[in-house]
């Protein structure tokens, strides 16, 4: 069971990643519709602690992250994000311990289901986050730990 304090610190972490990624409402306004370079360049969680404000993201059972428990090779790790929350605008995939946490952003329309899969690179074992951003500015997340192991001869 998560304690309330754990939950808060997790929310803080996600908020930091999101803020660093420019996806919290306060920052998102400043972004144009084009490629969000700042989001993908964001390195550390601390980068945006200041920006953590109004709406802290919260863990939600209505968001799902899929992926293996163990990846034999960090170069290719299958992950997916989906949600049943209505009014979802975007789905994000983030790898906490990668040099830049944000990996992919999917803009969801009514014409597709809020359910996407891709494959990411992971430098080491890490929590991987799926975050759903809703039209009314909420950020909901699910996370999963994926262990990256060393396969083969290691030579």
């Amino acid at each position, binding site marked *: 069971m998560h304690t309330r304090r754990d939950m808060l610190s997790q929310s803080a972490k996600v908020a930091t990643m999101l803020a660093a990624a420019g996806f919290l409402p306060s920052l998102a306004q400043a972004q144009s519709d084009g490629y969000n370079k700042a989001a993908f360049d964001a390195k550390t969680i601390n980068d945006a602690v200041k920006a953590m404000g109004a709406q802290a993201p919260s863990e939600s059972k209505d968001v799902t992250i899929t992926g293996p428990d163990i990846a034999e090779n960090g170069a290719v790790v299958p992950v997916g994000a989906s949600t049943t929350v209505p009014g979802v605008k975007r789905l994000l995939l983030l790898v906490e311990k990668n040099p830049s946490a*944000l990996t992919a*952003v999917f803009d969801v329309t009514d014409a*597709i289901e809020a359910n996407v899969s*891709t494959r990411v690179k992971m430098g080491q074992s890490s929590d991987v986050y799926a975050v759903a951003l809703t039209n009314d500015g909420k950020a909901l997340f699910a996370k999963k730990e994926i262990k990256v192991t060393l396969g083969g001869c290691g030579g």
Partner: protein
Amino acid sequence: MADPMRIRAQASGDKATVRVLMSHEMETGQRKDSAGKVIPAWFIQEVTAQHNGKPVMTAQWGPAVAKNPYLQFIVKGAKVGDKITLSWVDNKGDKRSDEATVA
């Protein structure tokens, strides 16, 4: 020029699952070659999907999407015979667009 994508769109009920494989290096910009020189980043930045010409999804990717990327999504209301078009643009401005028919 980039090699073609492989797109599979499989109808089931009132929707279609689209699976895409793209041929791309997805170089992170953090690796070094044997001489110790940084290999410049080279990766797909934007992906768009259309259903019978109508945009249904846009994605922005960073360099941590795996080499030769795989993408799966589900298009509502897509029927057998419909067209699914995928396009991508990378950080060097290289582009690729391919089309598949829902089966």
